[in-house]
């Protein structure tokens, strides 16, 4: 176990020194270190059983997964942090160079990033409306209506579509100003020159609607599952007690659905914070950054401008903001759901 660990340290150290031109050795890639890591992991797992017996076998349920997470999440995250504090433009012959807090300073003065963050606030707020629609649809599909099964499947279809497909089918085709069926229909109604993406506010709203169309079914299906788990007797008891339809919903169904609702909203927020595909394909962030999301901006900075160091710093800061926001949100909802008197 210790031997394999020493081997891992030796190989990794050797490769690191070679990469830094400190020793006259060249490696084609980092596979030797990877192989040493796998060997160490195997020895470590085997060693647990040999040294600790039954207790070691129990550790085996967790240890491989831990090693996997360390190699696939923790290590890339740490490596990403190193890149985030680097000046690394892929076109630069100098390669990657440590540049301290320069990327943070640049981010602080970057109006594109702040604009994208502001847009994200609007996009995230739209979830409230999405939730209301999803709840309404779920109630509808939970009631005794005709062709209920058909509608359940039909309403779920948008979720099965890739956002890229939605971008092209709707954003680039159906909303196309000249040939798109929606534009033609509006022209028939006498609305001339409808531009869905020409005006900043309308463009942002159209993106919100396209994204909502794709993901409302996700919230709807979660709420529907929750509604189906609510015993009918509860509603019937409310009716017997004289509750109107609205009071039955507001004072019985809605509170009972809160845990499911909060889970659905939190997951939806996570999806929303990653919003990029539709924007990249339809507006490229325009007009003038009105529809830019943080992810689409990072994508442009990284992809079009090969600015790896700065792009990674933006992504890291965004990650920190998301972690803080989600933690705060979870705490708040927890306190709300389980008040401590």
């Amino acid at each position: 176990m210790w031997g394999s660990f020493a081997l891992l340290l030796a190989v990794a150290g050797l490769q690191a020194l070679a990469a830094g031109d400190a020793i006259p050795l060249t490696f084609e890639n980092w596979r030797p270190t990877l192989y040493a890591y796998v060997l160490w992991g195997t020895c470590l797992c085997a060693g647990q059983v040999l040294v600790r017996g039954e207790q070691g076998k129990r550790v085996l349920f967790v240890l491989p997964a831990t090693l996997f997470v360390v190699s696939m999440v923790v290590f890339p995250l740490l490596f990403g942090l190193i890149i985030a504090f680097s000046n690394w433009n892929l076109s630069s012959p100098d390669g990657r160079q440590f540049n301290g807090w320069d990327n943070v300073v640049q981010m602080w003065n970057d109006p594109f990033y702040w604009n994208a963050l502001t847009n994200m606030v609007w996009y995230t707020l739209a979830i409230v409306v999405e939730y209301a629609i999803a709840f309404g649809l779920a109630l509808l599909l939970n009631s005794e209506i005709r062709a209920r099964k058909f509608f359940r499947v039909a309403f779920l279809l948008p979720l099965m579509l890739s956002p890229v497909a939605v971008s092209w089918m709707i954003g680039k085709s159906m909303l196309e100003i000249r040939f798109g069926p929606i534009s033609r229909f509006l022209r028939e109604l006498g609305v001339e020159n409808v531009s869905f993406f020409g005006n900043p506010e309308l463009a942002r709203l159209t993106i919100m609607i396209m994204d909502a169309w794709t993901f409302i079914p996700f919230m709807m299906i979660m709420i529907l599952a929750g509604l189906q788990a609510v015993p009918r007797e509860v509603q019937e008891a409310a009716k017997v007690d004289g509750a109107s339809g609205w009071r039955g919903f507001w004072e019985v169904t809605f509170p009972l659905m809160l845990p499911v609702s909060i889970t659905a909203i939190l997951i939806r927020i996570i999806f929303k914070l990653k919003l990029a595909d539709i924007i990249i394909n339809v507006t490229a962030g325009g007009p003038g950054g009105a529809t830019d999301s943080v992810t689409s901006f990072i994508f442009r900075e990284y992809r079009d401008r090969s600015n790896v160091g700065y792009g990674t710093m933006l992504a890291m800061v965004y990650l920190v903001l998301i972690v803080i926001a989600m933690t705060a949100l979870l705490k708040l909802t927890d306190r709300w759901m389980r008040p401590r008197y």
Partner: protein
Amino acid sequence: MKLNLYNHAVRNGLTRRRFLHGSSALAGAAALSGAGGILKPARAFAQSDVRAEILRIPGVGAGSPTDADWQRVGELCLGGTRETVAEGEFEGVELTFMGLNNQNLHNFLFRGFLRSWEEYTGATINWIDLAQADYNARLQQSIATGTVDFDIIEMGAPFEGDTAGRGLLNEMPEWVAELIDMDDYVDYLKAPVGTWDGKTYRVSIDGDTHTFAYRTDYYDNEEFAAAWAEAGNDTPWAPPKTWEEVNAHSRFLIGKTDPLTGLDAHGYLDPLKGWGGFGFYFLENRAAPYAKHPDDPAWLFDPDTMAPRVNNPAFVQAIQDVMDLIEAGAYPADQINADPGTTAFQQFLAGTGAMLNWWGDVGSSARTSDTSVVGDVVGFDINPGSERVYNSMSGAWEDTPNVAPNNAYIGWGIYVTNRVEGDDLKRKAAWSAAAHLGGKDLSLWASAYPSGFQPYRNSHFQFEEWEEAGYDRAYIEDYLGSNSDSYNHPNAAIEPRIPGIFQYYSVAEDELAKGFAGEYGSAQETADAIAAAWERITDQIGRDGQIALYKASLGL
């Protein structure tokens, strides 16, 4: 005559009457020239036969070519491969080819063109297809991370600094240079383009220049002409020759009706949305005649300091022109969301707008693409000029007319990477495939039909060949003339082959988008924002290196 040959000829569109007519003509020729001439035809005659035959596949007006057409063209142009490679010589060789899939062209055609090559040589090709916008990033990442995973690449000359400059390319063997007849290239595609440190790396398959396309039905329209005169204009209603006229025509057409579609008429189509950096070329079209002074080869940067010129009065004028047209409502309603692909293929070729600047393949697509409705009403010219030009050296405007075509991107080429080194058979296979795609005859077909490529060889400008394919003489003289005049113009604005050039263009697109959306106070403010961003990129990549390479690309 063998029955199978007769059937083959008839299958390819020859009627019995025309076949018999041709046979008797051939017999007559044989009688006049002697049997030897017919039994052993001269190579030039045979080549000419192939060229005529491929130009009839599928034929102008016969719809867009299909995969079967591309395969047939590839098969007919296999002569060079047969001369240099034995059948089955590359059996077992596997090559990886990275290229584009724009408009379902580029790699889609290459697959068809190379099918018969694969069958004949025994090699197999694996394909990496990339969208235009993803191409630059993929290439840059491969270069920077040392993960070049392709043997052959379709690449533009602007990336030669990034690739050849870092030793990632394989030098072209002499036999390839002879086979593809590089002397036939138009002058501006000859060295130093395709070379680095005196070594040649590129098989050109394209020549790039932006040409001006306009709708002839707009300018033949008597109502427009009368209204133009009534509005007090003392110039004739005719295709514009300067950007000042382009802008005036665009304003004049507001509120008019398109003579072809019956929808709203529009003037010049500026793409106002970015396109992975490629959108900046379209502002360059407007800026070139203002900014490219005939006495100064530089126009984007100061060659001694790399200080951007993008915020000088010439570029600011170009930006201001666009802003004024936006303000006037001269563009289609959704123009702010139109990238160059939209302006060419969804707007101009589909009948929206009177004027457009684009690469030359709009000319071949206008008549041969299924999606084009303007084939009979389109005319061509070089990039419009200007009534004045800015002299960056003196820092003042000069009131002299100026013309400067924008030879944007310098065309696509096929390059072989250094992955083939150490394996002679693989190297020969890679270069053979490249030579096949850049062959003289095959390139003629590619320049005549939708392919993503435009004419780039002197031999592509033989009007008779195009006429034989079904083009009318006037159209083809117009279209080819605009290309030829742009390539050979003494004041052409040529792309600098410096590392990271698309980073400059990409960040400019972002700032322009903000300017066009009214988020900056003025054109000057927009241009200043671009210049500041360009300075940061130059510092990041390395100013001294950029200065040296920029000067080299300008021949200074």
